[in-house]
């Protein structure tokens, strides 16, 4: 056994000789971001070792060559410990100042909760009912204390809000990183991880523990007893709901991609170790399909898509781009595999929306305006920044219609652009700062991601014989989408140019829709019936998907 000190966290742990720093950290309960789960490919699990530790470790042959590591920095998953080691710093723990949107398009909801409380003077007790059925009793009169929680379980982030079920008011809310993302960032990695019993246990308990922690905080902030919380709505994509409900998600990851649970049901909170009233319940909203989940059902509800006149397109831009086309109440849904580029994965200097991330970028007549989160020195590029940078470079001809960075010599660019077209490791890049740049490979990743979403839109529209110009309203959902600029989405061709002027960012509708489920029980019945009528398009079933996808990769108008 050897000793590993994590100075920052003030923890030390005994580890097996030959185990990795990452393994030791997990044993010690110290969080190190490791989205590729130790495969040595993502390069995010950097830690700084003390100088003395250097000779006590051995590097596995690491294939991560995107950038050379600064001195003292090692990849935790690729560094095996053979004698005592001190870790001075872990730069990528939960990102500082993470931007998570906790608000979404809200709708006027008539208060008619599933949960009701009534004081019975004869019994001198308060009775708690769920849809008219007795759930439990409390001593004395506690009828005024009636609370529920909505949790948006995002692949990357969690948002929890405490709601007063007697008034419908939101009392407090919290957001946090989904701890599952530290072990497996994207949905597919998570399905694979949780296909095994031990992996499922890690994913399930990780989510529940974090949700419990958030509930404790929001209850404390609002000075509410947790035992007065009777119902929790879990809104999230299909995989997240499987994991939170402790259900093996394996079948989601294999054709024909069948979900095990379809939502629209209650679970007993106590059986899932959720720390609320002992007879409290968890409600899972109805799921549409494996890749169009309860979060989208919540989105449909929050935007009342099914009740809208005319033609509306709802798009959740993320790792999986889910979208719903509503034509006078008729709904058709699909999803596309955009991949994790928008989350900064597979991007040379990609990162999440934390301090120092370039979040916006604009080329003006006089120069370039770059903004970072927290106005800090730039350390990387987050999703919104990435789309801005590529979008602006396309709009100004620095990236050609095929996605190629132009040679600075071949074109008459202003000096402030030319000087940024420079070479790193022999390859042409667009420099954003000394340390941060956009590579040709990064642009290719953006092309793949936006091509996937755009081809989904093309198929949805074509399927209903609707042109882009005929679409009257475009709703961009999701906390990621909220931070995007419409101009960049159109510059990139992620959205057709015809959508200009019709786009509305509706924010976290998974949460606001989940809240509506909590506040009015009738929505549960309505949406359960509705999801059965939602048309589903499986893009892989279309013969010409390849052709359309390839067409959508370029930056010319499709």
């Amino acid at each position: 056994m050897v000793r590993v000190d994590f100075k920052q966290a003030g923890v030390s742990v005994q580890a097996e000789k030959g185990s990795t720093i990452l393994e030791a950290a997990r044993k010690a309960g110290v969080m190190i971001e490791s989205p590729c789960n130790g495969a040595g490919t993502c390069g995010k699990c950097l830690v700084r070792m003390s100088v003395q530790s250097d000779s006590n470790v051995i590097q596995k042959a690491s294939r991560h060559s995107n950038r050379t590591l600064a001195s003292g920095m090692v990849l935790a998953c690729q560094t095996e410990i053979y004698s005592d080691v001190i870790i001075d710093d872990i730069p990528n723990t939960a990102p500082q100042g993470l931007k998570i949107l906790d608000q979404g398009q809200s709708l006027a909801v008539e208060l008619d909760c599933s949960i009701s409380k009534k004081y019975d003077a004869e019994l001198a007790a308060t009775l708690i009912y769920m849809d008219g059925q007795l759930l439990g009793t409390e001593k004395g009169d506690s009828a005024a204390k009636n609370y529920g929680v909505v949790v948006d379980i995002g692949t990357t982030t969690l948002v929890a809000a405490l709601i007063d079920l007697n008034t419908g008011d939101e009392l407090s809310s919290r957001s946090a990183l989904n701890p599952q993302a530290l072990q497996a960032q994207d949905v597919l990695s998570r399905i694979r991880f949780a296909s095994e019993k031990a992996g499922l246990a890690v994913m399930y308990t990780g989510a529940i523990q974090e949700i419990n922690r958030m509930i404790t905080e929001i209850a404390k902030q609002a000075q509410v007893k947790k035992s007065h919380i009777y119902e929790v709505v879990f809104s999230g994509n299909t995989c997240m709901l499987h994991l939170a409900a402790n259900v093996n998600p394996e079948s989601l990851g294999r054709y024909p991609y069948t979900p095990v649970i379809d939502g629209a049901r209650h679970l007993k909170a106590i059986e899932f170790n959720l720390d609320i009233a002992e007879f409290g319940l968890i409600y899972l909203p109805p799921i549409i399909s494996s890749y169009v989940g309860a979060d989208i059902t919540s989105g449909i509800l929050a935007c009342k898509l099914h009740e809208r006149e005319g033609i509306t397109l709802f798009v959740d831009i993320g790792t999986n781009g889910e979208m719903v086309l509503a034509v006078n109440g008729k709904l058709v849904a699909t999803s596309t595999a955009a991949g994790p580029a928008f989350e900064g994965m597979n991007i040379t200097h990609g990162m999440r929306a934390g301090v120092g991330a370039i979040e916006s970028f604009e080329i003006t007549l006089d120069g370039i305006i770059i903004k970072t989160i927290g106005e800090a020195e730039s350390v990387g590029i987050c999703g919104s920044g990435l789309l801005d940078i590529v979008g602006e470079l396309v709009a100004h001809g620095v990236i050609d219609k095929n996605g190629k960075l132009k040679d600075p010599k071949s074109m008459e660019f202003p000096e402030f652009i030319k000087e940024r077209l420079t070479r790193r490791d022999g390859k042409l890049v667009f420099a954003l700062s000394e340390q941060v740049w956009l590579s040709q490979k990064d642009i290719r990743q953006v092309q793949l991601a936006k091509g996937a979403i755009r081809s989904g839109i093309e198929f949805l529209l074509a399927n209903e014989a609707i042109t882009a110009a005929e679409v009257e309203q475009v709703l961009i959902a999701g906390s990621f989408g909220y931070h995007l600029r419409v101009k960049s989405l159109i510059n990139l061709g992620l959205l057709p140019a015809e959508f200009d002027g019709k786009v509305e960012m509706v924010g976290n509708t998974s949460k606001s829709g989940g809240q509506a489920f909590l506040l009015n029980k009738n929505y549960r019945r309505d949406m359960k019936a509705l999801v059965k009528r939602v048309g589903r398009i499986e893009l892989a079933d279309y013969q010409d998907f390849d052709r359309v996808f390839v067409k959508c990769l370029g930056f010319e108008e499709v």
Partner: protein
Amino acid sequence: MSSDQKELFVQLSDAVVDMDEARTVELAQDVITKNYDTYEAIEKGLADGMDRAGKLFEEEEYFIPELLMCSDAMYAGLEVLKPHLKVDQQAEKFKVVIGVIEGDTHDIGKNLVKIMLETSGFEVIDLGRDIPPQAFVAKAKEVGARVIALSTLMTTTMDGMAEVIRLLEAEKIRKKFVVMVGGGPISQSFADRIGADGYAKDAAEAARLAQKLALEIAV
């Protein structure tokens, strides 16, 4: 070879690289009218063009749409030249059995590799997508393939690739085939771990690697 002939082959190659389908067809017809060797026109013109396109793809100059447009031009030229090949020139080619592993339906990457393999002189038997491991083995035995090429985009299905290798080993025929793997979540270390012979990060590299490995194995 006359200089005119040489020049024509270079132009053919250029037309493929320039994604110019009409010009490729025109030049291929010139080859026929002038009675030049069609086999050489394919080798030094069309295949050379695709090889150059593949290199540009690896260098990130070209992306998927450009590579596909080059291959459209190449196939159009091939249509013109193929009927004029002499019988003895239609030599036996190495066969590749390719497909997307069971559970996965994403096949764009596999289709790109198929194109690059065909242009580098392989006969490709495409099983399609969502293919059970056993089907790869059966087909490879049936056609006497030299290479088995497995593709997947999904992390959740990559373990099926190891199953193909296990089946080959169980039948004691592992050494008869080159097994290559590729796709989004695949890496060299994954290939090493499951005992595959080769991994390539993109279609152009896959074709080159297949040529190398197919010659190396003793059959």
